[in-house]
């Protein structure tokens, strides 16, 4: 076995904590799950987006006559055909960012290569593609700006008239200047990260149609709540737009913003015919959102004994041409910039800047992952300077329950990061020896603190509806969307635990904005936390309502009932009734067996002027550890062993938790070592999937996983979120291991052989 065997459970749970193969697993191994591109409707048209070939230009002419005249073409639409050609994002709720609107279709101006200019629907995909080629657009190119540092310079070309600085967050506590001046040691570093592609295997896709005056889109999306924005774009009432989320073939944040939705909506509404749109992989590489490249400057001060006294952090993120979710990404970076460490004096500035690059937006880790390279590198540098071991220095500074964060918030759940560090290192075993001459080996660690749940000032909520059917089976309705991480399946496990319905007797209906209670989108590692709590509370409330009926039939107090195996019993193993019999009894007594519950996250507020206030509800802590070998001739880094441990509070489904950690770690290894969606002067350098190197089965070793279950999370039954956290540690862990091997700290991602060779040669890459 390559993964640690799942430990037997001692908790009082029967279903939670087991790893059943649920409905979605079965469909997936059969190949029978229907993704967004798998629906076909009678008379269906095929859509194509026409995109700008240049990064910055005025559109001086747009002629669609020839395209419209082409046989088979049903519609060619431009900005003039969009009722409300404005997408207003305001990702931080208008707290601190500039208000900049993004057109659905470019109106007179394009700001990045790949920006949509027109959209076509035709009888076949080939006809749509050919018609797209016939659209004549005249571009008068304008100067662009392609990196955030240049974009902030005086006289830089303006991406938007209001200016290039989208948002600048400040978090301040204590007296950083004084504490740095008084520190025994101060270490400094500058760290740079790259554009990264989500590279979900399923490209953006969907089908749209109009029926009974309602526009319905069945798409690959993380957020069905975009229905409201689509209604705004078309000038329809919100009740006339329905979004259904198919099970996704991966999303990782890249399907958190709208992708095909507005284009499908325009075409289906205009033609009144079903339309399918699938973005080519090459189109997805060109025009889908990317991970923000960061420039991070850190100064960290400490006492001789290793106690951190101060940290100054400046973060600059490349937002690309439009706001998307950048304000919130850079906020998360600021809120997490000091990691799982006590920093009594902190000054953090985190700025998102417009450029003429493709927009950056949500990507697993969401700002809180880029900064791990910064704070962990600083810790290693500090350990080296003070002659302390890396673990000793960390233990001296780890946060604990009750500590204050730089925002003035007090941590109110346990911090088991030290335990995760020792367990991760423990899994690696004895350090490896170099395999030959010219080879150096090293060991690295990387700890992190990653939020789960939305930024607190959004006053997040999620609803779920449960119904015990007449035959005793259970129906769950939830607006949750499923990325492939088992979002729906874990809700079934929670409901099964409370109501005793066997998993095979539970059906879950998800991701439909018209028919299911809103769950608020699958992002920010929030669905287990939010919808898990919603289902837990809905199930408990439903049980409280129907328990008196069972108690009456069985002649015992309601609190004594045992709910398991599709039965309600007077005591475990004793006489009982089936859930079907209970449903029938409830029906006779006019007790409803359906229940809607809304769960609300804790509320709070953040003051952007003082940089103090509430940020995130809670955090997941973890540590990764790795052994690497560096070939000093070629600069090649080989990962020899990799181990990861996170405190997940409680593992609802341990196998899926392992899967999340393994998958996050390998995605992070790609980020650390190979992936670079380089954009030169506004043009993406990877035009083909073959040019963009995501990890394959040979690239990296198995990821060893251990799980801590502290039981102190704010999710259902004490769970903490694990979707995003495990990608955060990786780059820092590998940098730490390379540092250990060659004695020089890599500070730029990805850590390619060329860059490692430059470090070995004493050159800064």
């Amino acid at each position, binding site marked *: *076995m390559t993964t640690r065997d799942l430990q037997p459970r001692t908790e009082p749970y029967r279903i939670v904590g087991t790893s059943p193969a649920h409905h979605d697993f079965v469909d*997936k191994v059969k190949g029978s799950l229907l993704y967004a591109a798998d629906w076909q409707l009678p008379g269906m048209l095929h859509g194509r987006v026409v995109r700008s070939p240049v990064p910055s230009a005025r559109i001086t002419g747009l002629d669609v006559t020839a395209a419209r005249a082409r046989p088979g073409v049903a519609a060619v639409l431009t900005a003039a055909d969009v009722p409300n050609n404005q997408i207003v994002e305001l990702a931080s709720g208008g707290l601190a960012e500039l208000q900049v609107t993004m057109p659905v279709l470019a109106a007179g101006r394009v700001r990045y290569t790949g920006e949509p200019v027109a959209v076509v629907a035709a009888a076949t995909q080939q006809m749509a593609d050919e018609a797209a080629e016939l659209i004549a657009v005249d571009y008068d190119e304008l100067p662009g700006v392609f990196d955030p540092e240049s974009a902030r310079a005086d006289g830089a070309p303006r991406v938007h008239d209001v200016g290039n600085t989208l948002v600048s967050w400040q978090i301040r506590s204590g007296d950083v200047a004084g504490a740095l001046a008084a520190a025994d040691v101060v270490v400094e570093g500058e760290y740079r990260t790259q554009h990264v592609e989500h590279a979900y295997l*399923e*490209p953006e896709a969907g089908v749209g149609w109009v029926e009974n005056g309602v526009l319905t889109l069945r798409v690959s999306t993380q957020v069905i709540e975009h229905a409201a924005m689509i209604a705004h774009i078309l000038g329809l009432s919100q009740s006339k737009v329905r979004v259904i989320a198919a099970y996704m073939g991966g999303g990782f944040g890249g399907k958190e913003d709208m992708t095909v939705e507005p284009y499908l909506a325009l075409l289906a509404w205009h033609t009144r015919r079903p339309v399918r749109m699938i973005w080519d992989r090459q189109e997805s590489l060109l025009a889908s959102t990317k991970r923000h490249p960061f420039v991070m400057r850190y100064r960290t001060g400490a006492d001789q004994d290793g106690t951190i006294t101060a940290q100054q952090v400046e973060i600059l993120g490349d937002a690309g041409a439009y706001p998307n979710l950048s304000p919130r990404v850079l906020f998360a970076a600021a809120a997490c910039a000091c990691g799982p460490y006590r920093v009594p004096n902190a000054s953090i500035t985190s700025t998102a800047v417009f450029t003429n690059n493709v927009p950056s937006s949500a990507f697993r880790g969401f700002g809180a992952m880029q900064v791990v390279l910064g704070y962990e590198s600083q810790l290693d540098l500090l350990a080296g300077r003070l002659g302390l071991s890396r673990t000793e220095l960390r233990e001296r500074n780890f946060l604990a329950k009750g500590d204050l964060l730089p925002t003035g918030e007090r941590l109110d759940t346990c911090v088991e990061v030290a335990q995760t560090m020792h367990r991760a290192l423990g899994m690696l075993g004895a350090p490896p020896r170099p395999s030959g001459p010219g080879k150096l080996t090293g060991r690295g660690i990387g700890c992190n603190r990653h939020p789960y749940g939305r930024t607190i000032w959004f006053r997040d909520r999620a609803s779920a509806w449960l119904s015990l059917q007449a035959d005793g089976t259970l129906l769950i309705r939830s607006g949750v969307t499923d990325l492939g991480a088992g979002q729906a399946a874990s809700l079934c496990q929670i409901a099964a635990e409370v109501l005793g319905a066997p998993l095979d007797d539970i059906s879950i209906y998800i991701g439909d904005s018209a028919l299911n209670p809103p769950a608020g989108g699958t992002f920010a590692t929030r669905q287990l936390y939010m919808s898990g709590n919603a289902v837990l509370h809905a199930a408990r409330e439903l049980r409280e309502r129907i328990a008196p009926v069972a108690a009456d039939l069985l002649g015992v107090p309601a609190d004594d009932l045992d709910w398991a195996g599709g039965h309600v019993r007077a005591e475990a193993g004793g006489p009982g009734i089936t859930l079907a019999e209970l449903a029938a009894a409830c029906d006779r007594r006019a007790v409803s067996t359906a229940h809607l519950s809304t769960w609300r996250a804790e509320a709070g507020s953040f003051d952007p002027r003082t940089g103090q206030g509430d940020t995130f509800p809670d955090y997941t802590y973890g540590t990764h550890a790795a052994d690497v070998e560096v070939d000093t001739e070629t600069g090649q880094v080989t990962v020899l062993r990799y181990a990861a441990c996170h405190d997940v509070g409680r593992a609802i489904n341990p196998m899926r938790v392992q*899967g999340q950690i393994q*998958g996050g770690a390998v995605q992070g290894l790609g980020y650390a070592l190979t992936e670079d969606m380089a954009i030169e002067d506004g043009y993406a350098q990877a035009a083909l999937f073959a040019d963009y190197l995501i990890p*394959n089965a*040979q690239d990296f070793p198995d990821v060893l996983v251990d799980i801590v279950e502290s039981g102190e999370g704010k999710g259902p039954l004490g769970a903490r979120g694990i979707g995003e956290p495990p990608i955060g540690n990786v780059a820092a862990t590998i940098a730490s291991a390379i540092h250990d091997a060659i004695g020089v700290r890599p500070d730029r991602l990805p850590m390619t052989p060329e860059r490692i060779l430059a470090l070995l040669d004493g050159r800064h890459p």
Partner: protein
Amino acid sequence: MTQRQITLIVNDRDHELWVAPSDTLLDVLHDGLGLADVRYGCGEGVCGTCTVLLDGEPVSGCLILAVQAAGRQVTTLRGLMGPGEELHPLQECFLRRGAAQCGFCTPGMMLTALDLVRRSVSQGRGRPSRDEIRYALVGNLCRCTGYTKILDAIEEYADQ
């Protein structure tokens, strides 16, 4: 464009189809025959989500024209299942090991693995090693699982 009539033998059934010379095997299987287990992922033969067995050999459906497959045996994942959608033993292993997350790469992954195990056994080399499995899977990308559970599942199948 001029259409041509061809016969495709897919999962042991003959299909008479009219196809354009430019239609890929992927287009015809996915859109023409409604086989949702053969999926578009990149169109470059890089990702492996459109993998099918052509006369028993794994190929990328996006790189083969439908006319080139005329008269040949095409097997998709669904063709491995028994009557009543009885799972193939390899599918059982994937299920048990939690080897799918989003599931998009899963059919191609299994077909490539099946071919490897069959070849290895039929050529008298016994079950493939974990490293041989890794090598065989380089053309089937997965972005969710990190591959560990996929390798576990294939090893378990190979052991049977």
